[in-house]
């Protein structure tokens, strides 16, 4: 199969009305826009964790590796480190990126890894029958917390700004143009870009709950301190780009303009250098 084929004959198993459809459609709209900006489709590689969000892996005609729960964030970093010519994107649920894989998320931000993390935030473990998630409201009544969860949710926007992400935004699956534009910007951004997408899982949350609460930032914060302040104060339904910054990216700090896969050193040169080590050592 080729990347530009549109019909793929894979059964979509998301619930009718799921917010994930909007994320899928936004990505499909974003790809041609990225191509217009010079990012080739074949240079994009993707990963996904495990959960409802991750089914997007099968629905996108893009190259990639369908990873494990929470490990997708490490998977794409390995892709980028080996071949920095690739544009890497991972789709991660809130259980993935904020639970099982949170160490990978924090460290990807900390090292400003040149990648995009799209956080499908439905604030619930949907596929495993509705347990509370790291982003679920306190009091969430799920099968693992029948008396209501007793933990406060994380603030992912604040967490990402604090730990070093250089592009941090929140979108809503019901605002598909905004979502598409932000994804295009995030993928183009050089550095760790984080896009949280509020995404109703319809058996657990209604679109109405979201539509009543979402609002856009009046203006994009123009300093780190202001971004922190807004991220702390604004409730979790505020949409927009909270923070962006230019910082050296990980792979360039590690080995400059090198590309370990494309510019491999030949066998002969390796042997010669090893002989030198033996000779001197």
């Amino acid at each position: 199969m080729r990347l530009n084929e549109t019909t793929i004959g894979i059964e979509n198993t998301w619930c009718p009305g799921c917010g994930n459809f909007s994320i899928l459609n936004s990505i499909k709209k974003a790809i041609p826009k990225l191509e217009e900006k010079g990012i080739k489709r074949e240079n994009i590689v993707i990963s996904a964790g495990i959960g409802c969000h991750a089914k997007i892996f099968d629905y996108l005609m893009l190259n990639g590796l369908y990873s494990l729960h929470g490990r997708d964030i490490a998977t794409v970093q390995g892709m980028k480190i080996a071949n920095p010519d690739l544009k890497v994107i991972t789709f991660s649920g809130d259980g993935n990126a904020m639970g099982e894989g949170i160490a990978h998320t924090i460290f990807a931000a900390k090292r400003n890894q040149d990648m995009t993390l799209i956080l499908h935030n439905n604030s619930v473990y949907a596929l495993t029958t509705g347990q509370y998630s790291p982003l679920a409201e306190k009091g969430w009544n799920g099968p693992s917390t029948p008396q209501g969860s007793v933990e406060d949710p994380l603030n992912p926007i604040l967490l990402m700004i604090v730990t070093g992400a250089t592009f941090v935004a929140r979108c809503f699956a019901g605002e598909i143009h905004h979502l598409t534009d932000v994804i295009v910007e995030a993928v183009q951004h050089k550095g760790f870009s984080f896009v949280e997408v509020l995404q109703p899982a319809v058996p657990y949350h209604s679109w109405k709950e979201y539509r009543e609460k979402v609002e856009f930032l009046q203006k994009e914060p123009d300093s780190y301190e202001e971004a922190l302040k807004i991220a702390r104060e604004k409730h979790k339904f505020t949409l927009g780009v909270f923070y962006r910054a230019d910082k050296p990216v990980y792979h360039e700090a590690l080995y400059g303009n090198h590309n370990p896969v494309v510019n491999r050193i030949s066998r002969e040169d390796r042997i010669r250098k090893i002989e030198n080590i033996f000779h001197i050592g």
Partner: protein
Amino acid sequence: MTNNVFTFLVGGKAGEGVKKAGSVAAHIFSKLGRHIFQMDDYMSLIRGGHNFSVVSTSTRWISSHYMKANLVVNFDKRSYDLHFNDLSNKNGISIYNSDEQEKGEGIGVPFTSEAKKYPMKTLMYGVGAVAILSSAIGFKKDEMNEVIKSEYPSGIKDNISFADLIYDIVNSQLGRKYKLEKGDIIRPILTGNESLSLGAIAGGLDVFYGYPMTPASSILHYLAKLAPDFGLAVVHPENELAVINMGIGSAFTGARAMVGTSGGGFALMTEGISLAGMSETPILIILSMRPGPATGVPTYTEQGDLNFALNAGHGEFLRIVASPSTVEESYYLAAELLDLVWKFQTPGILLTDKHLSESSMTVNINTSKTKWSESNNYDGEDYKRYLDTDDGISPMIFPPSNQLIKWNSYEHDEIGFTTENPKMISKMHDKRHKKVKALENYLKNMKTVNVFGNDGPEIFTYGSTTMSVLEALKYGNITAKVIQPIYLKPFPIWELEKESKKSCIVVEMSKAGQFADLLKEKAEIKTKSLINKYDGRPFDPIDLSQQIKEVI
């Protein structure tokens, strides 16, 4: 000099240059064209405690240190007491720190009061040990000073002045006590971890991931140092989960990826090993064992993770497990495994341990004899990542590509899309399982078992313990046939048919006798006598030769 072996032992606190003194001694011996084996024993701490380095040398190949030393230099009373019985009773000489004890066996040297006069203080003790060795083997001062200059380049003037002083103190009693015969050629010295790192590079390594854990950390350190020159990416990420998954992500792009760890880190990696099995990702994992379970004894040695390496990871999938016996074999086997994991698109484990990882040996490596990792690349149309072929091995394409490349942790169809279809599930199980036969057939044309000697009782062993056994046989003048399976999974039963149903001696560093069990289960080889050690310390050839003699 028992057995034509000379042994130098230096002991003291961490931070006094004990290990460095051992390494310098090893270089002095190798420059004489001799073979060496250096074993460093150190505690899990940064300053203080007790460390020692023991270097044995001979004009023949030597595959173990000896715990009966000819020359013992102790920097403190604790070391003196601990190593009192490690002195060879034939011609052993002990050097002690006369500032720490009034009386002692051997020659007293005022290390503390003399070193105090220099800004580097106790850091200079190692230089003193080198001066003592220089005197004992009959080096002239200028020969010694050449060594000091090249091995201790910071503060050369002070180092030489201190070495001269120590040399003068001991030379009247110690000078030229040991005449070391010159050997044939000067050989490089490598640790097992350095050797396997270089072997992997020679075999095509592109990226290495590791999280510090003794005794595997020195692979990370060595490769990080070599990375710029060899164009490698060497990364120390947040944990071993990241390590294995970054490795898998890199392999997806076509990069030859390797990771390294010890038992605890390997436990965290098992989830990723299973992913590599399902997604058919080639990845080489170095597992360097230390005593477990749990934190165990971090800086010591054991072979207790054999069963874990053979079985780690949920679900059924192909894996390759092989264990090198020597520093030299570590070089070739790393490259060979890197090639195999790419040929068969599955995880491979190079099983080693602290004793082999961190001990040093003189080596004679044919650098170009290594395998170069090749993959089954595809340049046609209608690409299917998991194409079902006769041998189960599917073709590979790497991004960027306009043909769809899908690697998947879920059960999947031939293209790589997720499936829950019962026919497809069993078909893909069958497809992956075909690789088991294919690999076995491939290995039948390779060297999978080392055999040393033709006659005498059969002794089975593997990994670093092979070296201990070979040295024990030499020391004890014992005739035996030593059989060392290099490959442990698939287990090379086709090479061991003659030994089937026989009762043999098994030597391993495991309480439970895991290797003996494997021999029984896979090859119906019974264990007549199990010689096992599990105190964290490698076998000493003198003790082991005695144990072997008792069971023959």
